[in-house]
């Protein structure tokens, strides 16, 4: 447990070393920017949809083309679901190809 390690003073030196590692700082900065951007997109998409429901029901109820039964709200609602899935896919891709190798190199040096 971290408590015991902390008490034994095993951590502090290594923590300071990693904190000072420019690769670590870069990783934290990049990942944080990326995840907040994705979070922002998801919030805007979902609450945009909710506000549309709250304030403009007619817009969602109109047919996607004259004569069709499908309303605009259906591709939009299902689109919100698909965007959610797509954003998780985008994050996983970037994390696997970009963040993981960075983390790995930081870890390897830290555990030397």
């Amino acid at each position, binding site marked *: 447990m971290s408590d015991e390690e902390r008490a034994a003073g095993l951590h502090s030196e290594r923590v300071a070393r990693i904190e000072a590692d420019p690769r670590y700082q870069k990783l934290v900065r990049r990942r944080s920017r990326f995840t907040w951007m994705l979070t922002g997109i998801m919030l805007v998409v*979902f609450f945009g949809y*909710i506000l549309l429901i709250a304030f403009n029901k007619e817009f*969602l109820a109109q047919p996607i083309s004259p004569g069709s*039964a499908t309303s605009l709200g259906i591709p939009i609602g299902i689109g919100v*679901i698909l965007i959610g899935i797509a954003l998780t896919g985008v994050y996983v891709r970037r994390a696997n190809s970009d963040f993981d190798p960075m983390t790995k190199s930081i870890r390897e040096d830290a555990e030397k």
Partner: protein
Amino acid sequence: MKERLSPRLGLFLFVLILPTMALADALTAEAEQQRTNWPAILMFAAFVIATLGVTRWAASRVKTASDFYTAGGGITGFQNGLAIAGDYMSAASFLGISAQIFTDGYDGLIYSTGFLVGWPIILFLLAERLRNLGRYTFADVASFRFAQTPVRLFASFSTLAVVLFYLIAQMVGAGQLIKLLFGLPYGYAVAIVGVLMTCYVLFGGMVATTWVQIIKAVLLLGAATFMAISVLASFGFSPDALFARAVQVKADMAAAAGAAPGEAAERGRSIMGPGGFIKDPVSAISFGMALMFGTAGLPHILMRFFTVPDAKAARKSVLWATGWIGYFYVLTFIIGFGAIVMVGTNPAYLDPAGGLRGGGNMAAIHLANAIGGDLFLGFVSAVAFATILAVVAGLTLAGASAVSHDLYAMVIRKGQATSQEELRVSRRTVFGLALAAILLGIIFEKQNVAFMVSLAFALAASGNFPVLLLSVLWPGCTTRGVVVGGMMGVVLAIVLTVLSPAIWVSVFGNAEPIFPYSSPTIFSMPLAFFTIWLVSTLDRSGRAAVDRGGYLEQRVRSETGIGASGASAH
């Protein structure tokens, strides 16, 4: 169909699942129950036997507390993704959403999107950090750099509150569902759920719970896929033709009820757009917040991230889970519209008043009958029951771990309890929780429990989520801040819910609600965030200095996983 089955075999299996209960009562139960549904009971018995077999296998692998809480951290990302989907897709989403679409059309989709969009948020902000910082419960993460006792007390209180409300809703739902589906009395149904969930969790811990959830997810996704494809096939795979027919059916129903032609067409058309479900903008946003951020604070969901070996697997499991859950919600949309067309037009499924036979939630069940006859009806009924079992097993395990790990091992024993002692306490807690769930399920039989699931989400969004997020991401956060802020959020969410239409009017029978909106989250969640910020900022205690000083170390571990407890923990 049911005449073709051997009554003796059915009887044998029936006695097998109900060893202590009198058969005669079940068969002579009151009239409002459906006829005893043998195909459903047989298929359910097959599910029970299979899952008890899994539990027996799992029991041999549960030796330590780590096995019990997290399956030793040995679940793969793909398996965990399916198990999360199995944990999350409740009978409420399958039967409830398809029933809501059957009644109101489009409105059901609003629920579906809300239930899905919490997942990306969990992935971006929490999943990997949870895995890197925690061992067994989300309180491990929330209390990582804080004073253990106060934060664990808060976390176990809010975990038990969320678990109990969720559990009551599931138990009452299960009782009513089984009464309808299998023709068994309510009390038996609740007792069966309680006994089975105890078996899974008590003997098989997280290993059995995970596999029950995986099996259930596969069955539910399979059944829903088959139903949606069958519905679409009868419209030449044209969703537009399905929607057009559904609009026509609703218009005909309105006309038959005496509406003028113009108005009837209008009412038919109304199912294609949002209707009365969202009453005012404040409720709409509040409800959206509860669904989105509540998902990211549900203890039984957060716990699933400790079952995988590392952050990479945690990430992978969210991607799989989000994919399966999203796919499932698209299917329920088709199923709901299929029910309008195939169930709403068939008098065999309707009662004289024009409602659904057996109650509003039966749309998907009747549709199963319309598609595949009694046998498929039995299969879908059994899947619906299995769905409840998987969800309550996950809830029970989360509740038990809050008591045994957070309260007993960390607060009472100050982290000095052995794995065996902790295991013993969790098993006793499982018993206690199952007993409480059965009793509460029976007490709340006649009550309207619809608000309890939304209350559970509101509590999770107003307590666990702000506490977890700020403790992980904000250096200035202190013990005092998270405890006071988290409690404020939880208490306000409960109080406002009591004063809202769902309880103040529907349960207590007052004429006007004191709190007019349908969800408290738009007030309670910001209050929690604000209070945590305010109290932490003003906190000048010695402990606050330790809390803030621990941030850098916590961040190193949460970002890189260095020092994280992994599958190597055993």
